[in-house]
């Protein structure tokens, strides 16, 4: 395969990954890495580097809309970025000496969990009475515009959420993904932030988190321009199309189908990792 053909294949794959990732809420990075490593036999280091760049592009693009609409909790995001960036620097450092087979197994496990979580929607339980002194002190309690005016919510369990975000940052730096699923666990389940606000805030944080590990990746040569170019552009365009279709498309059955594909990819990654094929 020549570089021209290879680039076109990558662009097409990335476009579909970005589209499906945005329609299902799983994100593009989650399928880009298995696509590159399993299908196209690209070394996992290059795959992680290209995926990380695509994650910055899509999260920044999506975040800009949410931030303008006032759905993003800016202070909550900025506060938790302290946890995710610290984790991301550590994760990128780990990636430089962990064997690729171990990285593949961890990736498979995270992929499995993310697909599983995408099938279940945790119902919102909005707290209106501010109970946490820390969240009041940090001005984390927020509000966002919703159908019936403004929904206000209080943030709980700040320290628990902070540590979960730290883990999300480590995973993001290690695997080159946004680790949106872990961020949702931290904000929805632990801190009781409503789904809409937590996914907008998670998007907001992903770019900065990823940027924290880029420096280390660049110096190690993980980020190959020729490979990253079609991936970044493809995922970005796919995610943009997905966000335009989101309100018209029926995503229920698509979500299940996509989750099945991701489950299969997860198992393949784990299998390849255990047999040292990656």
């Amino acid at each position, binding site marked *: *395969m*020549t*570089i*021209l053909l*290879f*680039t076109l294949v990558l662009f097409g794959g990335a476009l579909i990954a970005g589209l499906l990732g945005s329609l299902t809420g799983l994100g593009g990075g989650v399928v880009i890495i298995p696509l590159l490593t399993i299908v*196209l*036999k*690209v*070394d*996992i*280091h*290059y795959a992680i580097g290209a995926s990380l*760049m695509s994650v*910055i*592009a899509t999260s*920044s*693009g999506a*975040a*800009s809309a949410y*931030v*303008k609409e*006032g759905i*993003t909790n*800016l*202070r909550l995001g*900025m*506060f938790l970025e*302290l946890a995710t*960036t*610290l984790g*991301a*620097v550590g994760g*990128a450092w780990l990636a430089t000496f962990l064997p690729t087979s171990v990285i593949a197994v961890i990736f498979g496990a995270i992929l499995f969990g993310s697909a599983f979580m995408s099938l279940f929607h945790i119902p919102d339980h909005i707290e209106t009475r501010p109970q946490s002194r820390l969240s009041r002190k*940090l*001005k984390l309690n927020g509000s966002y515009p919703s159908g019936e005016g403004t929904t206000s919510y209080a943030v709980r369990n700040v320290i628990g959420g902070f540590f979960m975000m730290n883990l999300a940052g480590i995973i993001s730096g290690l695997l080159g993904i946004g680790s949106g699923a872990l961020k949702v666990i931290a904000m929805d389940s632990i801190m009781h932030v409503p789904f809409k606000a937590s996914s907008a805030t998670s998007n907001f944080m992903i*770019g*900065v988190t*990823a*940027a*924290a*590990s*880029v*420096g*280390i990746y*660049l*110096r*190690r*040569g993980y*980020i*190959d*321009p*020729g*490979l*990253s*170019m*079609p991936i*970044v*552009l493809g995922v*970005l365009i796919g995610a943009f199309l997905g966000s335009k279709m989101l309100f018209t498309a029926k995503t229920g059955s698509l979500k299940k189908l996509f989750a099945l594909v991701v489950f299969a990819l997860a198992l393949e990654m784990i299998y390849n990792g255990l047999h040292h094929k990656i």
Partner: protein
Amino acid sequence: MTTTNQKSDDSRMGKIIGNLLRFGVLIASVIVLTGGTFYLFRHGKEYPHYRKFAAGSQATSIISNSFADALHGKGRSIILLGLLVLVATPIMRIAASVIGYLLEKDYLYLLLTLAVLAIVISGFWS
């Protein structure tokens, strides 16, 4: 009164940050696409070699070299420049919020955002 002030300050910061992110991604994409066109024109008929990882070969001077090479129309360097603009976008966003919190005299968040900025930049230095 203070809460309404904080709200309007936050929503103004939201607008500025939103525009910054959008334009950053847009400019980066255009640069990457330009570099990609050059790259495919010159190397499109060659064969890729991504199966084996060449550990840190072009490591240390990659950023400074890319500026010089990009001026000579080297596709890969132009793409890298675009990718650097892409990475700079969220970093600029933190820098903008540092200024925002300074103007708001919110010293707790000024400190927090400065710390995040330091962590992110440290990744490029160490």
